[in-house]
């Protein structure tokens, strides 16, 4: 599982940081940053939930 974000689309809602704090963070303007691009399988639930609730559809979970 690989995480990609479309940062220009991010609206700084903070939802992903709240749901998956080990995978996502925010920069000084609140824009999403990925802390862990290849999260462990145990993070799958929260990562998929983050992608689903992101109001800007800016998070992609990619299966390589």
């Amino acid at each position: 599982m690989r995480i990609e974000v479309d940062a220009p689309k991010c609206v700084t809602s903070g939802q992903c940081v709240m749901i998956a704090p080990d995978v996502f963070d925010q920069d000084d303007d609140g824009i999403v940053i990925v802390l862990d691009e290849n999260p462990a399988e145990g993070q799958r639930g929260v990562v998929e939930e983050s992608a689903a609730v992101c109001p800007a559809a800016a998070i992609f979970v990619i299966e390589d």
Partner: protein
Amino acid sequence: MADTLTSFDENPHGLVDFPMAKEQTCPFDPPPALKRIQDEQPLTRVRLWDGSSPWLVTRFEDVRTLLSDARVSSNALGDGFPHFNAAGKARFQSNHTFVNMDAPEHPRMRKMVTRPFMVKRVEALRPQIQAMTNELIDEMLAGPKPADFIEALALPLPSLVISELLGVPYQDHKFFQDQSAVLAERDAAPEKVVAAIDALRDYLGQLIQAKRKSPQQDLLSELVTERVDNDELTDQDAVELSILLLAAGHETTANMIGLGTLALLQHPDQLALVRETDDPAVVSKTVEELLRWLTIPHLGRRRVAAEDIEIGGVVIRAGEGIICAADIANRDPAEFENPDALDITRDARKHVAFGFGVHQCLGQPLARVELQVVWSTLFKRVPTLALSGDFRDLPYKHDALIYGLYDMPVTW
């Protein structure tokens, strides 16, 4: 289709009037007519106060789809925008901010004020919010019984927090709480709304000028020294933004603290779970479920189609108004099992009580921390907290833009 509509209160034009009345017996539920519309005609046209007939969107998935569609506009200055009422129209025209802008202006302006609302910045405020909460509870307990819970805790806490964050002196709270309350009145005369905005504009304009001379560690100072002085914002922009944030910080969280506390008092089994736990995850779930179940911005997210949009078998034409009814969408059985039950153990995080799409609430991390602190503290500190009187007789804000309670007598 015409047959199914006859079960609603129709006006002579054959369209249902919106908004509808809530049931007197259950002040927590959306109007029963909305449930029927969701079941029978989830995308339908309704009639508003000014005779216009925008689309009403009631299904969770349709609400998410439309609120995240770039062809759906928040521009409230043009034709077709379904205003709440004459007062709401006057408000948007007088206090023009990014709430009612589209890309590219919307993201540019929103970014000017995102910093203090970041999850980590807000988490850093938690100890301070906890101390404020403790102090307000101490004061309530030291005062006479019954106390008005709205006056004692629900309103002062968010008011203190947003004042601190913006750098607005709390000693002026009577003034800005009263003006913010006028902005949330649904049936205020438009002139009254404009007067309240003008008063806030004068007040915040002077305050911002003072911050220019002696900047402090707060958002208003940051707007002046980093944004206006770098020509990213005009003085006027900074003032309009501060009106928005001050009002948004008041109208919402205060109502959520009041109505949410009442909902827990009416569900003692669930309240017991909150009172007994030391697990932040349980409290956080409680907050999300109450946000979903109550959906206090109860008059729908208002939009206008910028292009023709095909959805759910209908075509919304360019220029037609759209109302995304988040309250009933958050009760959609296709999305939430047994949606009308308040169940603080469910995972409700996907709710649309903060909206969806690019306009999703900017203040949500702050609102969440405030609500978590209140409900993890209140019932432990005041285990005997009880409503004084019958919950059916309370003064509910049926007539306000954000649903809640005018006052709520409690005892302990």
